[in-house]
């Protein structure tokens, strides 16, 4: 029986494209990027032709419909934002320019809002620096009142429409690049002529790396940055705090990473599932959507618990999955010479 199992395992390993790679591609990546493109197209439609109102609020620049579409698009991005390989490796920068340590988004947008010369054309907007594009540029245009106050008349809604249109183009191209370009490369891992993944295990390892890097990013950046230190909490370093999405982004990223872990596993992984569930419960208890009160010891404590539970989920996933993924640290990447 044991021998038969080993033989079956060997046979399985010899197969080039593992079933779990196919599951990630077909059940998470392709539908996720298609959903993102559709949501961004909806946002672009809602933002087109919006005009400024004398009183900022519901009627401004397309009003509530634009804000709802913005949130729907950001939600869709959170379903795939951890997949930073293939075309996403370079595309992610201009879709979600964060962290933005130097306030580059505000600076680029302030320049565009104040300039006397015409705004770029829709196609020409792709040449604008990444900080002035994507979800965080939209967030600034929709939720940063100080930025709005610096805009030349009529300029802000036009720029919002332009950024939304550019994001729709970007996400449509990204979905197509995944579907037509990178998905076939992942699915043909180990087959003759595939120069990106010489074995099926390399493709599996690349996807597993997205899981570990994604958990690390949520723990260290999305939670760690606003936490700062006890003496110096940094609420304005939270992700998407202006639109009140900081906690929501943590929860959505954990859900997407949990789904990825399950898709990568050949068999049930109850320990990992339980650890992700515990992290989700901890997120539900934070009760501070934009991390505004990270200086409050009670909120701080709840975020520390969440951070700890994400670390535990990463450890369980490594135990359940890491051993089978053949991951070794980069021989050259770690060399530094």
């Amino acid at each position: 029986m044991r021998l038969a199992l080993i033989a079956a395992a060997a046979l399985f390993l010899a197969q080039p494209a593992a079933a779990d790679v196919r599951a990630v591609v077909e059940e998470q990546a392709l539908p996720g990027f298609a959903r993102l493109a559709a949501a961004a197209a909806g946002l672009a439609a809602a933002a087109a032709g919006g005009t400024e109102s004398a009183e900022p609020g519901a009627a401004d620049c397309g009003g509530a419909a634009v804000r709802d579409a913005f949130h729907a698009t950001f939600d869709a991005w959170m379903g795939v934002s951890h997949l930073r390989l293939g075309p996403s490796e370079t595309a992610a920068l201009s879709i979600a320019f964060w962290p933005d340590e130097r306030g580059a988004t505000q600076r680029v947008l302030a320049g565009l809002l104040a300039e006397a010369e015409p705004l770029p054309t829709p196609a020409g907007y792709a040449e604008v620096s990444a900080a002035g594009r994507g979800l965080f540029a939209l967030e600034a245009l929709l939720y940063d009142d100080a930025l709005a106050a610096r805009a030349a008349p009529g300029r802000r809604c036009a720029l919002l429409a332009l950024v939304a249109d550019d994001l729709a183009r970007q996400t449509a191209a990204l979905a197509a690049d995944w579907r037509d370009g990178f998905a076939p490369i992942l699915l043909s891992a180990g087959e003759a002529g595939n120069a990106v993944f010489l074995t099926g295990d390399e493709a599996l390892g690349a996807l597993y790396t997205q899981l570990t890097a994604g958990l690390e990013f949520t723990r260290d950046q999305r939670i760690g940055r606003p936490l700062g230190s006890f003496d110096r909490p940094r609420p304005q370093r939270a992700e998407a705090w202006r639109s009140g999405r900081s906690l929501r982004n943590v929860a959505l990223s954990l859900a997407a990473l949990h789904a990825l872990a399950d898709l990568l596993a050949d068999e049930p992984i109850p320990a990992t599932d339980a650890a992700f569930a515990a992290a989700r419960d901890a997120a539900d208890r934070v009760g501070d959507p934009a991390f505004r009160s990270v200086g409050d010891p009670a909120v701080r404590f709840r975020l520390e618990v969440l951070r700890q539970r994400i670390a535990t989920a990463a450890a369980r996933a490594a135990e359940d999955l890491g051993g089978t993924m053949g991951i070794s640290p980069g021989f050259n990447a770690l060399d530094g010479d």
Partner: protein
Amino acid sequence: MTDRRTFLKGLLAASAAPGLSWADAGGPAFIACAQDPGGGFALAGLALDGATAFRVPLPARGHAGAAHPGRPLAIVFARRPGYYALVVDCVSGAVAARLAPPPGRQFNGHGVLIDGGARLVTSEQDAATSQGWLGLWSARDGWRRTGEIASGGIGPHDVRLMPDGRTLAVANGGIATDAADRRKLNLDVMRPNLAWIDPDSGVTAIAEPDPALRQNSIRHLAVHPDGTVAFAMQWEGDPALSPPLLGFGRQGGGALRLAAVPEAERAAMKGYAGSIAWNAAGTEVAITSPRGGRVQRFDAAGRFAGSFARADACGIAPFGAGFLLSDGGGGLIVLEGDGARPLSHADLAWDNHIVAL
């Protein structure tokens, strides 16, 4: 001392008889250092089909190498801080000579044979101060150290021969390191440069990057037949800035020039380029980033031409119309234009560099 030299000469005579050529070593086209699955280190010869032509064990992790133009001898340099360079007979696998830096010195991983293989130049630094030196050795006289010359900067790394067959181009990385480990000590005040040096009379020209880019350590070089030195850099400044990692310099040709790299491509290299090569025709230059798992190609004017993603990719050398790429996963990949095809896959981790013979 004479006894040792005589002994080494004898070894040399026995193991690499003057009549032997690279064909006797299995006709390798490249040499590269590697780590095997057991954790041991080796120097390998690679044939054009990607097969291993020979494999010679190394006492510690290697870095780069230099090949003798005529005889089947390779000089392998230890990883920084290096305390050995081995002259390896690639036919028998025997170590023909073992070079050690003088007291207080460290080898810095690179070197080059000059004067038709008669002399070896080694990149070195003073262990205590990181002041850079080029060591000079006679291949004809039992690999005796014959002298040294200042490299013109701190922490030199790569050294290459210019097309005039005499002048050396040196990448002075500018980074002072701890004598015992590789800790970086002077990142706030580092000043890398690209230096041109006559091996007998010293520095003939030095070019420094723009002051704003002084934290961009110049580390690896590839020389175009027209004398343009392309260099690959490692950024030690604010990671959010992602400056270009490829530049060009000409001896006495004024300011260093940077490549034009799209913003997202710059970020994808993670501030680190590990190797650089021109293609055989000199129409394209490529830099690799093992941290970004990425290779970027540029035309000779420094305009971005395309990129290819491959985990832990680092070694690069001219191959066909394009390049041969090696990685820590044992892959050898051929890049031609926008295309890529696997050449071979070994159960080895290929180390930083591929040296074309």
